[in-house]
């Protein structure tokens, strides 16, 4: 660090709000897209596993295997195939969510008490009605617990991806790379702080969201 430079230059931040904002938006895109893909894939897998118990173990094994691949290695392995494109980032980021999401979704579905399923069936719900109107709503608390974990992980890994991907990916990781390369601490500290803040915010938002859509799970027992 050249002598005389400040550790953190607020003036620079104020002067570059636009480009910093752009990095935040890129980072969100880099995180949200894999999360949505992960949720859709895991939901399908979880419904399948709840209907057919024998596929649960193989799905857990495969998603677990994908989860163990080190993130840097995954990006490196994909580079020769997909090149330096957004897809190279999206594929590993998505697969990393699957283990957490699949397991929490499956746990959510199996947490629905048998007598509730029987009551629904006995009253004449079709299978689809029962899935969407009974099983899914009751699985939501455990599902959101998984989504919180997956979102924090993905926001963290998206930082790694954007360190690698340069301008192609964008994101907060780029602030960190550029800050380090130009010996400008303000930039890399800002990048790091914003990633952490983003992860915290996502977690907080999902907590609020869960309380909002599951008032029944928080209704006071015996309330007047």
């Amino acid at each position, binding site marked *: 660090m050249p002598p005389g430079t400040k550790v953190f230059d607020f003036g620079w931040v104020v002067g570059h709000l636009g480009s910093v904002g752009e990095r935040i938006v890129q980072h969100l895109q880099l995180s949200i897209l894999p999360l949505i893909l992960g949720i859709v894939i895991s939901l399908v897998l979880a419904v399948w596993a709840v209907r057919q118990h024998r596929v649960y173990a193989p799905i857990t094994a495969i998603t677990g295997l994908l989860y163990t691949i080190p993130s840097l290695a995954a990006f490196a392995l994909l580079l020769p195939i997909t090149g330096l494109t957004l897809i190279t980032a999206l594929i590993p980021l998505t697969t990393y969510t699957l283990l957490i999401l699949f397991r929490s979704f499956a746990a959510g579905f199996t947490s629905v008490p048998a007598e509730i399923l029987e009551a629904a069936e006995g009253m004449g719900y079709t299978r689809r009605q029962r899935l969407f109107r009974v099983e899914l709503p009751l699985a939501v608390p455990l599902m959101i617990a998984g989504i919180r974990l997956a979102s924090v992980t993905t926001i963290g890994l998206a930082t790694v991806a954007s360190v690698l991907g340069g301008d192609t990916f964008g994101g907060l990781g780029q602030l960190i790379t550029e800050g380090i390369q130009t010996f400008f601490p303000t930039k890399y500290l800002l990048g790091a702080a914003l990633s952490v803040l983003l992860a915290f915010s996502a977690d907080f938002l999902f907590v609020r969201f869960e309380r909002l859509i599951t008032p029944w799970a928080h209704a*006071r*027992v015996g309330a007047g």
Partner: protein
Amino acid sequence: MVDQHRQAAVVEFEHVTKRYDAPAARDKGKPTPGAVNDLSLTVPAGKICILVGPSGCGKTTSLKMVNRLIEPTAGKILIDGVDASTRELTDLRRSIGYVIQQVGLFPHQTIGDNVATVPRLLGWPKARLNERAEELLALVGLDPAKYRDRFPSQLSGGERQRVGVARALAADPPIMLMDEPFGAVDPIVRDRLQNEFLRLQETIAKTILFVTHDIDEAIKMGDLVAVFQTGGILAQFGRPLDILAAPASEFVARFVGQDRGLKRLSLLRISDVPLRPAVTARPGDNAADARRRALDDPLRYLLLIDHGNKPIGWIAHGDIPAEGGLSESLANPSSPILNKRTTLKDALSMMLDADVQTGIVVDRTGAVQGLLSIDTIADKMREGEHAATFDQVPPPDPEIGEPDPADDPGATPDAVEVRA
């Protein structure tokens, strides 16, 4: 009172059999449903039929074959003459009320939404759903304004069970299936729910199939009782009184219990037995005349009554003065006052506690109608024992002796009536 269509359907089991293969290795340890063996019975419209028996006897399996949660291996179930297996599955289930022991309310829906479940599946307009939910909550004794917007977790076990019944009634189904509906609540709440349900049934008059393992509940709730034995065999089917009076096999006799005479008494009311005339007198009446009349009566007690014919108390014949008038101070008031609706079991219990073990039966104004003696109750109990060929109880106590038909002229025709 809510306007309920008094519609009900006939449910017929025709040689219904359900067999299960040996459970797969991974299902070992799970409770396996009981098989059912060639079940034929008819539940008339508007009656409560109790399916009772030990666990694994196929009673729940039989129930679930009606709404096809379980499909029979062989045989047919007819609802108003239509084979249930030909009906569209969800359509069939939406036309049958279903109540289970654990209630199974949807925790994520309000009480109002829970109650409106089946009408919502049937596509009723929203305004009608709310209206119907409120009607039904009121019907089962829950204040709609207070309960409608609560969640199931905010209710007590008894309240949840009532909501379960309301939900089953929502689309006004002609049939209700109830699987140990009051099994998960404590005995006091259970008794109250049973009484409430019997009162409700007087209004709604549904055809009800009701599973329990509790013979006392079966006797109390059932118009008809089907006793199942292990292996899914129907051991006996009939009115509770008839089953108690004449168990069809040793198994049924053991299942209904050795106290079935007493159980019969809980089903019989004073209106079912003949009363003895009382020897009565009023204060101020001639004592000598009253004494003579009391001595002529086998009971040898005089019942002092007031001018409204209300009982004042007993005077033993030895306490009646030889001359002069009767006075109220002579009367000993201790004797149970009964009415025609009192069960014989309650009457007996009260009479055993009293000084004079004779019940005074009064009408609604409190006027004496006649007397109930312990002998009359004993005769009624013995009617059941005449048929007790499967009992393992010791022979009747010789002290009690054989009933003398001449003792109570009403006993014989009544006995014929009960067996008929």
